[in-house]
């Protein structure tokens, strides 16, 4: 997403005085610039852009792993793979799981991170770094180690979580073996791994909230909640959008958690679209899997556009805003 904001700003960030496009100086600069860009672009074209195009090509063929040795056996089949993907009951199951993960996980992560950032920003001085570092630690930890620890934490008998629940009289379930509780466990883990980044982003955003507005509102008798709702939130809108978009992009692709924790089980209750795609690649159904990966890409784009619409800047009058953004209100108001 950062891609998008950055792309937008390119026309305004232009530095220096504009050069005439035909001038020899401009041409010399162009040569120098491409010289600088060349090493990166060669690697990028080979290892990123090339595979992206190759994947697109795969998606419209019936390529399977055995065809790699005999490329002539591959047929162009148009959108058949995409149709097959959408009719695949396992894909539908995976899509529903992914939707569940995103719809619960993104608001939960954003809400928790915003809450912690606001509290951290409300006058905490000495321990600020300490807290920030603590909340960020899960972000730098290898998912494999995280999986080992969390499998142990979630163990029904010897795990810490059920032990703590036992203190308050709750008999905790067998988290990862339950079709009901496996997905909430994944969401909890993902939230734990992601809030650190968002807290730092939101703390940076909170620095941009005009303190004099808070002062004026406080003088006028606005309470803490009202000031949060009507001053902090509107000023934070771009930061919230940014946080929502990067979290959304990450969560739509969610793969590592089920891969290391549940292998998509029990009974496919944590099978995500990305994981299903990975499995299809593993079975050698390259064309089919490539098509599915593009469906995932499409989902990322659509989600990003929706978030821009819901949280993005807008100049419409206030009444319109209220009617048009029920989701934004729900998400932020928690």
């Amino acid at each position, binding site marked *: 997403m*950062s*891609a*998008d904001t*950055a792309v937008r700003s390119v026309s305004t960030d*232009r530095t220096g005085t*504009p*050069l005439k496009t035909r001038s020899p100086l*401009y041409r010399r600069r162009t040569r120098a*610039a*491409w010289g*600088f*860009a060349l090493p*990166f*672009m060669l690697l990028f074209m080979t*290892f*990123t*852009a090339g595979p*992206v195009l190759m*994947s697109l090509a*795969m998606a419209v063929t019936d390529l399977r792993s055995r065809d790699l040795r005999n490329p002539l056996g591959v047929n162009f089949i148009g959108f058949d793979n995409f149709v097959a993907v959408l009719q695949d009951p396992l894909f539908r199951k995976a899509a529903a799981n992914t939707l569940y993960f995103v719809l619960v996980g993104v608001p939960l992560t954003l809400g928790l991170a915003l809450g*912690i950032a606001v509290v951290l*920003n409300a*006058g*905490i001085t000495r*321990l600020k*770094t300490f807290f920030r*570092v603590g909340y960020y*630690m899960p972000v*730098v*930890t*290898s*998912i*494999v*180690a995280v999986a*080992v620890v969390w499998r*142990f934490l979630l163990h029904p*008998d*010897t*795990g810490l979580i059920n032990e703590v629940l*036992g203190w308050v009289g709750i008999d905790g379930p067998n988290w990862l073996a339950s079709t009901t509780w496996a997905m909430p466990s994944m969401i909890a883990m993902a939230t*734990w791994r992601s*809030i650190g*980044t968002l807290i*730092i982003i939101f*703390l*940076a955003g909170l620095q941009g909230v005009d303190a*004099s507005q808070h*002062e004026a509102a406080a003088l006028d008798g606005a309470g803490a909640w009202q000031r949060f709702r009507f001053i902090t939130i509107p000023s934070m809108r771009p930061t919230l959008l940014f*946080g929502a978009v*990067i979290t959304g*992009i990450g969560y739509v692709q969610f793969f*590592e958690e089920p891969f290391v924790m549940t292998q998509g089980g029990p009974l496919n209750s944590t099978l995500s679209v990305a994981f299903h795609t*990975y499995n299809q690649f593993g079975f050698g159904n390259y064309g089919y899997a*490539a098509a599915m*990966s*593009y469906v*995932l*890409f499409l989902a*990322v*784009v659509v989600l990003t556009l929706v978030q821009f619409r819901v949280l993005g800047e807008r100049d419409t009058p206030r009444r319109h805003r209220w009617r048009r953004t029920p989701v934004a209100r729900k998400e932020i108001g928690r």
Partner: protein
Amino acid sequence: MSTTTKDAPTPTATAGRPALRRQGRAIGAPRAHPLAYAVLGLGLVVVMSPFIWMALSSVKGEGEIRRVPPTWWPQEPTLDNFTELFARLDFPQFFTNSTVVAIAVTLGNLLFSSLLGYVLAKFEFAGKKVLFRLVLGTLMIPGMVTLVPLFVLVANMGLVNTYAGLILPFLAAPFGVFLMRQFFLGIPDELIDAARVDGASELRIFAQVVVPLAKPAFATLAILTFLGSWNNFLWPLVVATTEDKYTLPVALALYSTGQNQTDYGLLLAGAVVVVVPVLVVFLLLQRYFVQGVAMTGIK
């Protein structure tokens, strides 16, 4: 860059309430309520407890680990899990592999991303917009899209199970370009123009004027890239096929599945070995992480 979380003095602050600012509180914000510390402290306990639990349990004997109800403090601390683990798995080799790959990926990113990021920030040239969109646009493409074509490519180059196969696909990452560009935008044009007037070549300007100014950005990119590579899991799992090329996460992941799945003591010791070096680096250099995230919003 200006968006580190330290309270930067705002114009109003310096003019109106210097005394308040010195205490580091935002204007109009009340002194932190004790409840704020309680809430944050409780949250921190929840966030940190998996780490503490991991560390404490890794020095428990196998019997104690399986005890119901679980113990918190180890009753009879022992390093058996670690000695056993090191006897079974070639950790020095995995550690070396992870280090070699991470250093190579980091150096490549520093060089290639900074060159491209620099021209995207400071040059006007034909094709700039296309280049920018092409590179940054791929940030949104799921990793799953390129996984298999990339593997086929690497296999065709004969690089499966080699260091080159582990390193090459990560040398040119759009994230680095974006981070370096954001930083270079803040360097004044006058400096570069002055060097040009003095007759310095573009490469020399970059190496001797721009790079020394960008040390904090390089430090940030180096640390984020190093850790990203250190923790990278899926690609090494696919490309490294024999033990002598396994990175630490791959070794732990493969060991933790199948018949060893219930060796909790050994696995937790393994998790400690994988996590502790990273946490030490992070704690020593945490301010660069904060800078990087605040600058780009991406970890």
